[in-house]
């Protein structure tokens, strides 16, 4: 087993990986940029190494600096987390070339699945149905091919992931503009401007299967997750199991996922993403060769620590358990808390999370990257934390998550908390009757209206009184323990907020 592992990432995922390393008795090494000096992820690891300026390109995407830090720290393995270099084949190669173990798939697997066009070919060869799509050398040819295939379509970065650079287009006129925009994002985010076009499957649900492979042709699945609640192709709320999946569909997606993982002799943890249409047809979307942001919901329903499984596979070349030993109980649901202003078109927010209080309580898990006083930088992804709840049933898990969100307080930067709370109270979400575009098509309009409602008089009175009395509340304070305050009945003037779905 490894003695020391460097985590080539930042924020909440570094904290998450460090927690498992700590439990396994393996020393953890964080890396940090100039902008992250003293950041939470550097405080939770056993040691921290400086890797460069704030810009991700010069630090968290700087493979050379990270490998050097790993060597200097005496680490024997590198965990890439997700994002940044997690799906960068050259980085995996550089790590191995330095004599260290890369906790993840082989460089060849990252490269093959990283090119979404190649991944589609591999899936097809493994007998997994793929979404109809077209490839072409340039934008004009793509538009012509899309015209022949029919609209609506979705443009994707060939080397993309995480929804970045994805754009939908409903006619040829918008397709050209969307291709250009997607190419720019792709060039900047993935270093390659190549894009391709897929048929946009409407009224579909996003269901993905977690797999683990030993790198020698054996693989197991750890059931599925449903990530249908999305805004602009970014997942917002994820859950396990998928609430609308039939037993037959579950068998189809999990078997297809294992078949693909075994066909490519996949090593480590990966995720096969699929879309399931209203008619029940399953289509392969892509395979992510890393841990997913939403992995905690799988961990909560199976009791399996996926980071530990990654580490054990990397260290031993063996699967830590057989398929029959993997069981699933209850329901888990996760909400992603972003520094985004839901009242202003979800613009990313920058600043200091002056006062933060995370929820706790039985069956509530928080994977956070900030504590009170930590900076939210313009340079990185605006996700602050994931809040996850587990319960025996889906309804109870949603209730528990809502309670946890009520107990969450982030002051100093604006967050999407009001959006998450309203979303989880929507009757369609309770009923499980939505598709990947439902949030934008049907939910956001009413929600925007809600966000335009005036701030209650009482809130303004509190602000003015705090100001006038030089209130201690205006000083940055450390996180207060959870008190009963959050559960007291607000004044009657708050009734309209409660009714509107923002409150209780």
């Amino acid at each position: 087993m490894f003695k020391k592992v460097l985590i080539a990432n930042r924020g909440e995922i570094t904290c998450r990986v460090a927690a498992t390393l700590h439990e396994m008795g393996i020393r953890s090494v964080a890396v940090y940029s100039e902008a992250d000096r003293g950041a939470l992820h550097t405080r939770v690891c056993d040691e921290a190494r400086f890797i460069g300026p704030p810009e991700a390109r010069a630090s968290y995407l700087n493979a050379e600096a990270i490998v050097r830090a790993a060597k200097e720290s005496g680490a024997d393995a590198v965990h890439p987390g997700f994002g940044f270099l997690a799906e960068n084949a050259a980085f995996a190669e550089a790590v191995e070339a330095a004599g260290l173990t890369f906790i993840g798939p082989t460089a060849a697997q990252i490269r093959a699945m990283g090119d979404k066009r190649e991944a589609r070919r591999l899936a097809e060869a493994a007998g997994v149905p793929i979404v109809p799509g077209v490839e072409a050398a340039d934008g004009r040819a793509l538009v012509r091919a899309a015209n022949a295939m029919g609209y609506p379509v979705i443009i994707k970065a060939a080397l993309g992931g995480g929804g970045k650079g994805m754009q939908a287009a409903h006619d040829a006129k918008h397709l050209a503009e969307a291709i250009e925009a997607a190419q720019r994002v792709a060039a900047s985010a993935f270093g390659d401007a190549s894009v391709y076009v897929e048929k946009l499957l409407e009224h579909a649900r996003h269901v993905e299967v977690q797999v683990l492979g030993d790198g020698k042709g054996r693989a197991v699945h750890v059931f599925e997750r449903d990530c249908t609640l999305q805004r602009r192709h970014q997942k917002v709320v994820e859950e396990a199991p998928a609430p609308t999946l039939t037993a037959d569909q579950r068998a189809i997606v999990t078997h297809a996922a294992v078949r693909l993982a075994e066909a490519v002799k996949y090593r480590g943890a990966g995720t096969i993403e699929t879309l399931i249409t209203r008619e029940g047809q399953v289509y392969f979307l892509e395979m992510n060769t890393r841990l997913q942001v939403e992995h905690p919901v799988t961990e909560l329903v199976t009791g399996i620590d996926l980071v530990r499984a990654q580490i054990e596979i990397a260290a031993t070349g063996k699967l830590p358990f057989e398929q029959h030993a993997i069981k699933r109980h209850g329901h888990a649901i996760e909400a992603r808390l972003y520094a985004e202003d839901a009242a202003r078109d979800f613009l990313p927010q920058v600043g200091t999370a002056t006062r933060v209080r995370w929820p706790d309580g039985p069956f509530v898990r928080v994977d956070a990257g900030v504590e009170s006083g930590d900076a939210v930088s313009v340079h990185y992804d605006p996700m602050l934390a994931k809040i996850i709840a587990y319960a025996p049933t889906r309804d109870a898990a949603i209730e528990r998550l809502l309670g946890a969100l009520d107990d969450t307080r982030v002051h100093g930067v604006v967050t999407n908390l009001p959006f998450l709370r309203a979303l989880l109270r929507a009757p369609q979400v309770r009923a499980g009757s939505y598709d990947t575009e439902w949030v934008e098509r049907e939910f956001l309009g009413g929600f925007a209206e809600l966000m335009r409602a005036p701030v209650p008089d009482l809130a303004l009175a509190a602000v003015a009184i705090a100001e006038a009395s030089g209130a201690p509340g205006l000083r940055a304070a450390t996180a207060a323990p959870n008190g009963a305050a959050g559960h007291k009945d607000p004044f009657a003037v708050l009734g309209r907020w409660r009714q509107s779905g923002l409150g209780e």
Partner: protein
Amino acid sequence: MKSSWRDGERVREVELKPLSPGRWRVRVDASEFELACETMPDGKLRLVGEGGVTVAEVTAEGARRFVRLGVLDFVVEREGAGGSGRRRAAGGAHDGGLTAPMPGVITKVMVVVGDEVTKGQPLVALEAMKMEHLVRAPRPGRVKVVAASPGQMVQSGASLVELD
């Protein structure tokens, strides 16, 4: 004591009159009420009025005030406190945006001085936190000034393009 607070598109006026220690006569816009307020050891405010009791937490961050009432969070911004109003007014998205709606890096400039643009036409692409935002023309017009160039890092509210 009077103060003004920006609440989305509105400006809210608050007036406070101390009645006795810990008791206030409050006017918010057109509505008036009395409140007793006690600061608790953890810094939270315990507000008692005709409607009952609630606990408020107020946090200052620059000109912004974050306030939590019970389990609900709100944000307002001090109006007319040197520069903050300007930053708000420069808030891009709602005003149709000739300014950067957030700090970021300019990835593409699609117009040059003298171009005639139509309403909604993309002028500048800005990337921050790995997301691209297109700054579009809020109205038809002719481009008078282009203050943005690709690769440039800009702050929120920075002027990017001026129309005649």
